[in-house]
């Protein structure tokens, strides 16, 4: 994942490759967006234009879908994305303290990215691992039973 891809050729080839694999029909729109999001780290405007063109779906509709789902991002994100589960099961077992510690460590509010493009901090709804709350997710790694004291060590693994 990189921040703000500027190479239009890379975007174009990624979009073409994904659509080639999934098929250019509207019911494949969400799988296509997910895969491009995964490959590029986010959905650049150029990619949405290209998808709209290839699928013959209006740009407005592609954007409305891209901006609807939580796992898709239309804004560039940091190299590492930290997701904090803010749902009730994590909250009542000490989630709030973990959230405060995360904000302190990264000097970020929810939804922000550090200036060096290294970290993005977001809150998320339930991740379905509630038995071991509080839960945080760094990129694709899940951490359960997190205490505020562990936050620093967990983040250090990605530095």
């Amino acid at each position, binding site marked *: 994942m990189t921040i703000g891809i500027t190479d239009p050729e890379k975007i174009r080839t990624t979009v073409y490759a994904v659509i080639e694999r999934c098929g250019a029909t509207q019911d494949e729109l*969400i799988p296509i967006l997910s895969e491009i999001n995964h490959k590029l780290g986010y959905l650049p405007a150029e990619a949405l234009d290209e998808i709209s063109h290839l699928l013959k779906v209006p740009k407005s509709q592609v954007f409305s879908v891209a901006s609807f789902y939580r796992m898709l991002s239309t804004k560039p994100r940091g190299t590492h994305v930290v997701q904090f589960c803010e749902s009730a099961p994590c909250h009542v077992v000490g989630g709030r303290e973990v959230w405060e510690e995360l904000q302190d460590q990264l000097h970020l509010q929810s939804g922000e990215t550090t200036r060096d493009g290294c970290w993005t901090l977001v809150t998320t709804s339930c991740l379905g691992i509630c038995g071991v709350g509080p839960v945080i997710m760094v990129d694709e790694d899940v951490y359960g039973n997190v205490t505020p004291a562990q936050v620093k060590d967990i983040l250090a693994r990605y530095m």
Partner: protein
Amino acid sequence: MKPVRSMILVSSDPQSKERGANEVYQCLQEELKSFGLESEVSLSMVGDVGRSDVSPLVIVYPDAVIYGPVQPEDAHSIVEEHLYKGRVVSGLQAPTRELSGRIAWLSARKGTLPAEQRIVLERAGLIDPDDINDYIIHDGYLALGKALTEMTPMEVIKTIDQSGLKGRGGAGFPTGSKWKFVSQVAGPKKYVICNADESEPGTFKDRLILEGDPHSIIEAMTIAAYAVGADEGYIYIRGEYALARRRLVNAIRQANEMGFLGQNIFGTGFNFKIHVHSGAGAYICGEETALIESIEGKRGEPRARPPYPTTNGLWGKPTLVNNVETLANIPPILRSGAAWYRKFGTPSSPGTKVYTILGNVNVTGLIEVPMGITLREVIAIYARGMKNNATFKLAQTGGSSGSIIPASLQDTPMDFDAFNRAGVSLGSGALLICDENTCVVDLARVLLNFFRVESCGKCNPCRIGNQRAYQILSNIAEGTGTLRDLDDLQALSDELYQLSNCGLGQTSGTPIRDILKHFRAEVEAHIRLKVCPTGVCPMNGHRA
């Protein structure tokens, strides 16, 4: 599957992995190799085996000895002593009292815990989810064979109807009736959808079924398709469940190869294929019409109903939408009959229910018990009491949209009818158990924040109502609420219920209604005395 002398299972739920299950697996593999036992002893990772406070677990069959928690360095003694020399390593055995479910019966057979009754989780954790043969030798695809070769579609529906099975997604709609509706619509093209978009906070039962026993869902969907006359199915799985998706895709491939899916199944001329469609992170897509919109490649915004999906569903065709847990009940019912199924649970809600136990209790995890168990039993027996001997204050059932149950209602049997009479919703089976240190205002604020974020924004009552309710609750938590706010909250809660388009908005006012009904004094203390009795709320005097 080739015959082996012994079988080793390593638990591989996220918690076990967190605690080093992968390393344990690798060490066991190396040890087996160094003792030359690879060909006689099979080793596999299995999904969650139940409650796992001593995870990672290593289970050795046929002796059914359970070791836990196992560290990688223990692998040597387990292999040398137990598998090479045949002696149980008693020092490493998991304490019997820390185990539950079929695992516990197998190991101790002493029944120190009231029996769980596993129907939908019968195989989860005991078979290799990636091996269709393992499923088949555990009665897999028997029900499908029976349905296709011995029963007419009407007979299948009648059996499901007689079993009294009710939808396990939350609403509790009778499954047999739903199947009947879809089967009665004439038309050459129908769809069956498995709703695996399990996003209700605190619920992960469907994930465990899909990860531990993916073939049971494929079998159930194929039976459903036969009964209602569909030839194509979708499994809509939430985007976060990567492992479950991988296992499903693999299971579908194997079922196709074996002829349990595809063309001319069991030589009966019946055809059925299944697609797996991943969500991209939206709670609302658990609502069946939003889910259908999402499969069609649109925003997950619920449709106006009627018409219902049973007549106008996916691509406008008649569509049957069932929850994962509901479907997992189908094969056992067809195998053993409706009368057998009715032996479990209560007369109005037969069968079992999978609950997830969470919050301030000693043991969190998941159980499958007959319908009608009480909250007191769950807390005392399965959850082993409150953490730090705190007092039980309230439970929140069924995820965010469920009810808040005060301690005074903890002896109400949990089934659909009794809960309806008590004005409580059973929901998806999540039981969030909170102790005396939980503030109801703070809890309601977190729940409303969830709805505020997850509202799809299509209809005004939900989009604006939840935002407004969240603001008011925030003011109360900051000590700047007024008594009028309580009337406004009550009104908002009623309006959300009456005016919203779909279930999300209709239930989002429930936490407000419940805290005002059961905990009004505590809420008023925030306003009249400017004090949070539990000391949780910030009370900084900010106002939104």
